[in-house]
């Protein structure tokens, strides 16, 4: 009885779960311009899904999978394959294996020694592959949602769905095992040195430890993130990299609670112009917010509330943030969805900024102390 009463009171006074508050970007997540100032390796349309096989870096752009040699002074991308549907996730390993997830739900696995294998849909429903991880003879697959495809992530967020799942698929037998269910858009996965899985759960702004078997609840490793987490990748020298593809804002948090407003917005407004997070912003006068009006002499201030942002966080082995790299509201390298650590150099794909940039790991906020 007390629970509903308290929730009603909280809604009335804006406290508890009804408090529309956001974690601050300070300390190790203090804003800087490291991504904005970083060297541009390649300018290409919507780069995503960086994957390193020990020699080459694979990535996707639209429906194509491309490859580039990071050792070359002038990076040139070479197209490896083109698909009918947009590529939504990639995984590569040192044995030359490559897994590709597509927006239509297809997952393909290619190895040197055999033909391309089509992985069957694990749940019998339209699948939504958002992240892949090759682990010896298994493929770990994150399905973001049961209701939506990966490219319709904005719909999934604004509908407040939590129907994502994590699967382990045996590449020899093809048997899928569900490791976790009811997740709010799992969008990144990484393996810790102990063989445990950590998953970025985007709509709940956290990283969770997923149990190796289907029984057992996920355990939060890092929560209260100031944005929506995307891919996780291992860092050279221990720890991890976490990409944040869009920032949280109080306005979006408020709109998420207003179901009638959302229903009207879905019906009447183009998704690109919704009051929702975005991979890029400031490109059309039809967009909402317009930087919150924080402009002086026509210059957008870096602290303006923005629907898009560029953020990459360096985590230690315990998933605590120790450094961060930013492209702020006045920047263009937004929507960082994936990265790879090449040891002394980190490549980050700014999907909203149409570029792959190379970062010096020593230049982020707090990075001098790592």
């Amino acid at each position, binding site marked *: 009885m007390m629970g509903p009463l308290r929730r009603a009171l909280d809604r009335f006074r*804006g406290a508890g779960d009804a408090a529309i*508050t956001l974690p*601050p970007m300070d*300390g190790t997540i*203090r804003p800087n311009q490291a991504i904005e100032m970083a060297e541009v390796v390649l300018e290409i349309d919507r780069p995503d899904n960086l994957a390193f096989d020990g020699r080459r870096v694979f990535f996707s752009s639209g429906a194509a999978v491309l490859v580039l040699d990071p050792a070359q002074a002038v990076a040139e991308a070479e197209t490896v394959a083109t698909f009918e549907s947009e590529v939504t996730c990639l995984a590569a390993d040192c044995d030359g294996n490559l897994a590709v997830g597509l927006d239509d739900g297809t997952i393909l696995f290619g190895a040197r020694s055999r033909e391309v294998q089509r992985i069957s849909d694990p749940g019998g429903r339209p699948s939504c592959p958002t992240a892949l991880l090759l682990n010896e003879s298994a493929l770990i697959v994150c399905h973001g949602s049961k209701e939506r495809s990966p490219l319709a992530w904005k719909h999934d967020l604004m509908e407040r769905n939590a129907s994502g799942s994590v699967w382990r698929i045996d590449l020899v037998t093809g048997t899928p095992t569900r490791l976790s269910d009811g997740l709010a858009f799992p969008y990144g996965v990484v393996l810790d040195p102990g063989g445990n899985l950590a998953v970025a759960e985007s709509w709940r702004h956290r990283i969770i430890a997923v149990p190796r078997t289907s029984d057992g609840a996920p355990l939060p490793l890092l929560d*209260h993130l100031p944005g929506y987490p995307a891919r996780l990748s291992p860092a050279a020298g221990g720890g991890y990299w976490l990409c944040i593809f869009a920032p949280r804002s109080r306005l979006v948090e408020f709109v998420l609670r207003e179901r009638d407003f959302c229903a009207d917005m879905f019906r009447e407004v183009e998704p690109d112009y919704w009051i929702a997070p975005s991979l890029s912003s400031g490109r059309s006068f039809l967009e909402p917010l317009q930087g919150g009006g924080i402009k002086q002499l026509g210059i957008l201030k870096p602290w303006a509330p923005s629907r898009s942002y560029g953020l990459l966080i360096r985590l230690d082995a315990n998933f605590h943030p120790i450094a961060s790299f930013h492209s702020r509201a006045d920047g263009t390298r937004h929507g960082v969805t994936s990265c790879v650590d090449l040891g002394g150099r980190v490549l980050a794909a700014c999907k909203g900024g149409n570029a792959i940039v190379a970062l010096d790991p020593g230049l982020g906020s707090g990075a001098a*102390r790592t």
Partner: protein
Amino acid sequence: MNPLLEMRGVTKEYRGVPVVKNVDFTLLQGEVHAILGENGAGKSTLTKIMAGVVQPTAGTLRLDGHATVFATPAIALEHGVAMVFQETTLVPSMTVAQNLFLGEERFLNRLRSIYISAQQFLQSLNFPVDPTATVASLGAAKKQMVEIARAVRHKARIIIFDEPTAALTPEEKHYFFALVERLKSRGVSIVFISHALEEALDIADRITVLRDGEHIVTDATAGFDRDKIIRAMVGRSLSGELYRRREQEQVRSAGRRVLSVQDLTMGNMVRNNSFSVYEGQITGMFGLVGSGRSETARIIAGIIKRDFFYGGEVQFEGRTVRYKVPAPAVKDGIVYVTEDRKAEGFFETMPIADNLYAGLLAKNLNAGGALVNMTEMRALADSWTQTLNIRATDKNARAVELSGGNQQKLVIGKALLQKPRLVIFDEPTRGVDVGAIGEIHQFINRIADEGLAVIMISSYLPEIMNLSDRILVFRQGRVVEEFTPGETTEEKIMYAAVH
């Protein structure tokens, strides 16, 4: 020039312990004479002898060349010697005007005429104090102004100020220094005790330094600099140790996020304030008076409440908390070391051991019942007195008998006894002598090295620059800028605090 006041070989002992030893002192007509020294150096006792508050055990005092003994402060005042104390001696329930005319009342008083006279007099001193206001309703600075006005009204030729600026804001200090200049131009001699060395260097004509009750040096201010004063006060140079600039590599790396304050709001004082605090780091908070630093800290510790509607959120170790009183905050591991130690920090008539044990009782309020374990209390007192190097005349000394620095250590000890995970220090070295400042700084550094999360609020920029691993600058109730000590300067911090 013949001295207006001359003291020769003055000694004062309490229970056989000398606190002032064979001190010579001279005060010239129309000069500002600063007396400096660590807490416990004997400054206050020496000036109390001048003002007739205490009698010297040995030595002579001459006023205008005549040997004099002031048996009471009233007699000293008759001779033109007035003292303005650290703690005001005003009657809180009476109005400002009544306090000004206290002791001079006629058989039939007309309040209106008193108020008019008081108003005129306060205006002549340029003091913005309402004569009809009760003293209890005034802030510390205005109480100080009334004290000064009372001394000036009695046509004092010598006015002794004991720590006059400790409670004043920068603007009020400006007024105060202008008043000192005006008094000086009228030929009034000023004796001035302060821990702020810059103030002494700014306004004094001569400086006397005492150490351990002994006279060390007296010279014209031009012959001193900050380092020379500190060397005379503590016997060694501490300036470089206390306020050296930290380099980036000396900054501690952030541990786990312990505290996350999100959009905290309390009226106009704290407005949508957001910041984080990490374990193993000292988070320094700087801002001008009224910028909302202390209020934010006090909301976190449950001393005051945030807004009932849309007051924001405080997450301590990942859990949303909303404390209505400090006890649950203490139990969860948040302690607040107050800036006003005399009013909120300790029970001044209780001994050190009782005060320290009170800290433990606060943590385990309902655990051990009402029984006091005397053995545990004594053991705690011995251990913490040693850990914090609390110096007292004897083990049973009451808190009020300790010097400011030792009182502050007592307050810190009481807080740390509660085994906190987050310690909030609010102006930890205000009114503390330089020797104790060094010890308190060392202690704050040590607890951060041990992994505790520390918030340190300070209005003194060199202290912020020296101790903090992160510096949060407050303005108008919120954090407006964050710096690391290696990348910033005092000018940048002040700019952020003002603009």
